[in-house]
């Protein structure tokens, strides 16, 4: 159906045509509605049909996290489950040191209670900062040291949704925070451009201020050369007079014989 605008059809058969067009539009609208409803049904059907294979729990963590020795780092872990969050939802964090093949469990959450085992390596350093309601299972490791270099694995289970692979985040501990590659360069470029902008703005301001003081002289030159500075000279009529008296010599020395000037002078 091609859409036709009723406005364009101006003729004596307008009434009839409008009615036809209306019917066309109504038919089109109904067809569109029908197709949209059908689309909804199809989408819903697809979701329901596909649902069993998509009910795996999905866990999201960052790939690499940088920490500074002696400071804290937050390891974030978010999960998504198609099922409602039940009371039996569990979340656990384990740690695999760099170069080792064994993992130790450092955090477990079950039944609304976080369990921190206080192993000798992570004694009093793990803190639960997540919120199960927001599907956020983040922990914070305090007072980092170089022995914390390694992989942290986050795993979550939400019965009956228990299929899902854990996600790991690698922690790298630096002596001093590394400056990202582009930061210094970007800072220099930004500073220079900012300085240039500042200078431009200053020059513009100074020009404005100087311009305001010198406006009477400008008006004379505009009037003398016959350009249309009507508005300006109209506003500053009295000032033009005063300046004309003072600088009458300059006016006479110009000697540009244009009738417009003479008439303007007489008007004022």
């Amino acid at each position, binding site marked *: 159906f091609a859409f036709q605008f009723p406005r364009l059809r101006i003729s004596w058969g307008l009434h009839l045509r409008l009615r036809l067009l209306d019917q066309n539009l109504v038919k089109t609208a109904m067809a569109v509605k029908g197709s949209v409803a059908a689309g909804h049904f199809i989408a819903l059907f697809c979701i329901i049909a596909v649902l069993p294979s998509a009910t795996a729990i999905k866990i999201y963590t960052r790939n690499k996290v940088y920490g500074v020795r002696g400071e804290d780092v937050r390891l974030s872990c978010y999960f998504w489950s198609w099922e409602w969050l039940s009371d039996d939802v569990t979340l656990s964090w384990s740690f695999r040191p760099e170069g080792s093949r064994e993992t130790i469990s450092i955090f477990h959450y079950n039944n609304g209670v976080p369990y921190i085992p206080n192993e000798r390596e992570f004694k009093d350093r793990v803190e639960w900062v997540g919120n199960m309601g927001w599907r956020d299972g983040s922990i914070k490791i305090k007072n980092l040291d170089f022995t914390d270099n390694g992989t942290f694995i986050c795993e979550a289970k939400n019965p009956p949704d228990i299929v899902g692979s854990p996600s790991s985040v690698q922690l790298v501990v630096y002596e001093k925070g590394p400056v990202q*590659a582009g930061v*210094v*360069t970007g800072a220099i*470029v930004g500073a220079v*451009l900012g300085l240039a902008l500042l200078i431009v703005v200053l020059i513009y301001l100074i020009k404005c201020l100087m311009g305001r003081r010198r406006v009477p002289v400008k008006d004379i030159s505009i009037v003398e050369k016959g350009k249309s500075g009507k508005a300006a000279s109209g506003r500053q009529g009295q000032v033009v007079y005063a300046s004309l008296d003072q600088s009458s010599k300059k006016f006479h020395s110009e000697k540009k014989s244009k009738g417009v000037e003479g008439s303007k002078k007489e008007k004022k």
Partner: protein
Amino acid sequence: MLILLALICVLHVATIVMLFISTIDSSWYIMGTNSTDIWKKCIYVNNSYSCVDVTDYENQDYLRAVQALMILAVIFSCFSIFSFLVQLFTAEPRRRFFITGGIHMLCCLCVMCAASIYTAQFPQPKSQWTAGTYGYSYILAWICFCLSFINSIIYCVLRKKGDD
């Protein structure tokens, strides 16, 4: 008059293009098939290039300065062509293109500083790169310096055509 204007525009655009190439392409210093740049080092290994960030030079500060200056040169040259077009169509007649010339002169200075710093500091005396030659990006940078200098002088001397 029109020919002169066209020539200046073409020269300016050529300068901008060369600056872009010089900044982006990894060819400031070449040794065989390996090349190093102000952004990364590329080594030809097993029929493919493997590039790493240039982060383990001893004097990183100079490298950051060269990077920043080249970027500033590109930015200033783009600004100057915009301001040239703006001034061409909106400035009063018989005015000189001082703003354009000034910005282009800044660009020229930036390129000169960048290329000079690179010449003075790189390659490192004790690094593995001392046996090579300067690549075409480096040469382009110096050419851009000359062209932009000439261009900015022309802008400062050129006058917009007057009504009478």
